[in-house]
């Protein structure tokens, strides 16, 4: 049995005149104990998908099950065995760290003590501040507390909707380390994020855009499917370089990527020499060009433009 199965789910919003399709025939499966990422920009349909799976929304078509239970008919069973952290950490700002945790533990019919071992590693960092109001915590600390609250009843499946949005790079890194540790405890985790670089930390990912899943696979396999040769190019004048490369006759695609520009050529047979000549002719200097490994963001861009 899978931790999550999603079968041809459709979700539409709005009136009859103007409908927005948030999810357009989405299907996926998450295996038990898997760390599964749903990756896409805002408005791609991530939150709708999470709300359908956490029994908070009804789909317009299709079926879905969590831990073997139907999200519509058996929603009560699901609510007893999942953990959910909605976008924007849902904590009571005027309650202290400990009061928040105790509240959610009791609401889920358990106690902090009963499942302390599960949250121990995360909570011990918060313990020095346990009397502090949640509203006075930093983004990273709030995120940790919200995770503790979602975990305190030892859920079978954990749903985290954009847990790292607006959190700085250090806290993001720590958060993903925590998720990997939780995975070891056998909890299946579904996490959504708009940050492409986080895809590589998941076992498998679904790339989602405008309500449609563009690809589902392990990050490595998705990257393998990118068969074209990817060049990285830089010069002293990066913006002019970008414009010039985009104008170049053999360019299929060129866009900025960190300190380089990523370039895909229409015809790879010629190699890099004609490109170099073209750039030198345009009096670029300090030109560097080499073959590079594409990453998930390149794949996302490629899939988007198909």
């Amino acid at each position: 049995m899978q931790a999550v199965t999603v079968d041809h789910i459709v979700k539409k919003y709005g009136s009859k005149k103007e409908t927005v399709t948030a999810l357009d025939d989405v299907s996926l499966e998450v295996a038990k104990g898997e760390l599964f990422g749903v990756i896409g920009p805002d408005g791609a349909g991530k939150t709708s998908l999470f709300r359908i799976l956490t029994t908070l929304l009804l789909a317009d078509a299709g079926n879905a099950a969590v831990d073997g239970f139907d999200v519509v008919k058996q929603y009560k069973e699901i609510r007893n065995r999942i953990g959910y952290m909605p976008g924007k950490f849902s904590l009571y700002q005027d309650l202290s760290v400990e009061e928040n945790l105790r509240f959610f533990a009791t609401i889920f019919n358990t106690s902090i003590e009963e499942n302390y071992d599960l949250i121990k590693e995360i909570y011990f960092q918060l313990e020095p501040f346990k009397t502090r109001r949640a509203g006075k915590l930093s983004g990273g600390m709030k995120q940790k507390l919200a995770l503790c609250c979602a975990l305190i009843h030892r859920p079978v499946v954990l749903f985290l909707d954009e847990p790292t949005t607006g959190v700085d790079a250090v806290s993001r890194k720590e958060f993903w380390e925590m998720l990997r540790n939780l995975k070891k405890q056998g909890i299946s985790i579904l996490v959504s994020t708009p940050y492409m670089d986080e895809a590589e930390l998941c076992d498998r990912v679904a790339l989602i855009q405008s309500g449609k899943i563009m690809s589902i696979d392990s990050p490595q396999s998705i990257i393998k499917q990118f068969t074209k040769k990817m060049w990285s190019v830089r010069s002293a004048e990066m913006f002019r370089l970008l414009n010039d490369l985009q104008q170049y006759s053999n360019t299929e695609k060129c866009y900025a990527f960190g300190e380089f520009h990523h370039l895909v050529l229409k015809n790879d047979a010629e190699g890099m020499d004609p490109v170099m000549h073209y750039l030198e002719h345009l009096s670029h200097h300090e030109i560097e060009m080499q073959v590079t490994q594409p990453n998930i963001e390149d794949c996302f861009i490629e899939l988007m433009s198909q």
Partner: protein
Amino acid sequence: MKEAVITVNKLTKKFGDFIATNEVTFEVDKGEIFGFLGANGAGKTTAMRMLCGLSMPSSGSATVAGFDVYKQTEKIKQNIGYMSQKFSLYEDLTVTENIRFYAGIYGMARPAIKEKTAQLLNQLNLTPEANTLVKALPLGWKQKLAFSVAIFHEPKIVFLDEPTGGVDPITRREFWNLIYQAAERGITIFVTTHYMDEAEYCNRVSIMVDGKIEALDTPRNLKKTYNAKSMDEVFLQLARGAKRSDD
């Protein structure tokens, strides 16, 4: 040829015992894209507020577009643009109404506004949406519009506070193209971001840790100095040592 548009010298802001920004010193040149990085609570927002003339420094000195942050805050405000994560656009006004409103605030003349609005809408491919309410636009369009509105009055400097949250990679690049174009025209860009690959797009990057600027250089030199493959690594090396984490 280098001409500094922002000069900051030992700028400090204290809130009681707490030193939010601690003797910060740097310069930003005309037309430069300057990345202002730091973990949550490192003091970025406080520093940016002082430079925008919204907050009085405790000590030190700074000039923005040639004006003093203590005495000439009104002059500073005339010469800068500002855009934050939350876009600063009115959702219930149309695209044109938003542009007209902001241009009006900066005292632009009506015919100039009209002409430039048409030009801008054309450039952003927004002409068909001129009379659409902003809330009906996709997120990426809103961000681009917000940025264009922020530089509509041709400020000397534009401050961008985490401008690109949550958009798809293509839209994000389109946004950065707008930033590059503005910089080409000589507008100085002062930007904070959580995306470390965006830090690479900047001419120079400063990284704040616990109220101080720990590093300031081109992305390339920073990576060399810290022996790192990416800006992400540089940032982690520096910010991991942070003691403060409060916003």
